[in-house]
């Protein structure tokens, strides 16, 4: 099964809607609730990162019998130092975004903890591609 979503940079009102939709789909497939939570937490953090840090993005979800693949591609400033960005507490979020409770620098660490595989490719000045894979154990 394939699902596609668009994300608009700066649009916090709708941030998380793609993840909420995916959760409903995964629930209807009767997958393990722990796996569902891990998967939607990962996708939510990646989705919000596009809203908070990039200009626009696409999410592609591919649900296979044994794995869930999520690819988030954005146009945006990219991530110049991936190692630094992965550190807990590192954030370049604006003061306005921080006031809403974003910008703790915990999103990327959350993705790492809640996914079985995570990969970021980024081209500074152009955009970021994030791949997340979770294993379906039956």
């Amino acid at each position: 099964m394939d699902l596609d979503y668009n994300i608009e940079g700066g649009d916090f009102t709708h941030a998380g809607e793609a993840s909420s939709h995916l959760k409903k789909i995964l629930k209807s497939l009767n997958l393990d609730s722990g796996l569902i939570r891990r998967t939607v937490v990962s996708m939510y953090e990646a989705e919000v990162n596009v809203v908070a840090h990039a200009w626009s993005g696409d999410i592609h979800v591919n649900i296979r019998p044994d794995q869930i693949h999520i690819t988030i591609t954005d146009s945006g400033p990219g991530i110049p130092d991936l190692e630094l960005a992965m550190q807990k507490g590192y954030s370049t979020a604006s003061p306005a975004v921080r006031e809403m409770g974003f910008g703790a620098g915990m999103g990327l660490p959350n993705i790492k903890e809640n996914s079985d595989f995570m990969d970021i490719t980024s081209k500074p000045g152009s955009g970021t591609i994030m791949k997340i894979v979770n294993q379906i154990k039956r």
Partner: protein
Amino acid sequence: MKVAELIEKLNLTVFESGENMNRELTGGYASDLLSDVMGKTKPDMVWITLQSHVNIIAVASLKDLAAIIIVHGQVPPSEVIEKACAEGITLLGTESDTFLTAAKVYQCLFSDGTGTR
């Protein structure tokens, strides 16, 4: 303790009753940082926060939290209440602050001192 009992004990305001009134609470978490809540909460916890914007509903829904308590007597905007209704999230409020609310929730849930979270 069920969500409905906690509401009565703490005299909480109900902005939206949602679908979780009969859920048995497993614990609580107090934080205003959304990705902290995303990372650290467990299902059926009650979340205490001063954030009252629409994104708290998605966080509670994605993490299967039992309820949100908004502190300082803040009234969430109507679109937040509508979203809570649509997602079945139990949205509550108190005049009290985070510290006192967390203390009272702890007392209600773990008054026998066996609280393990």
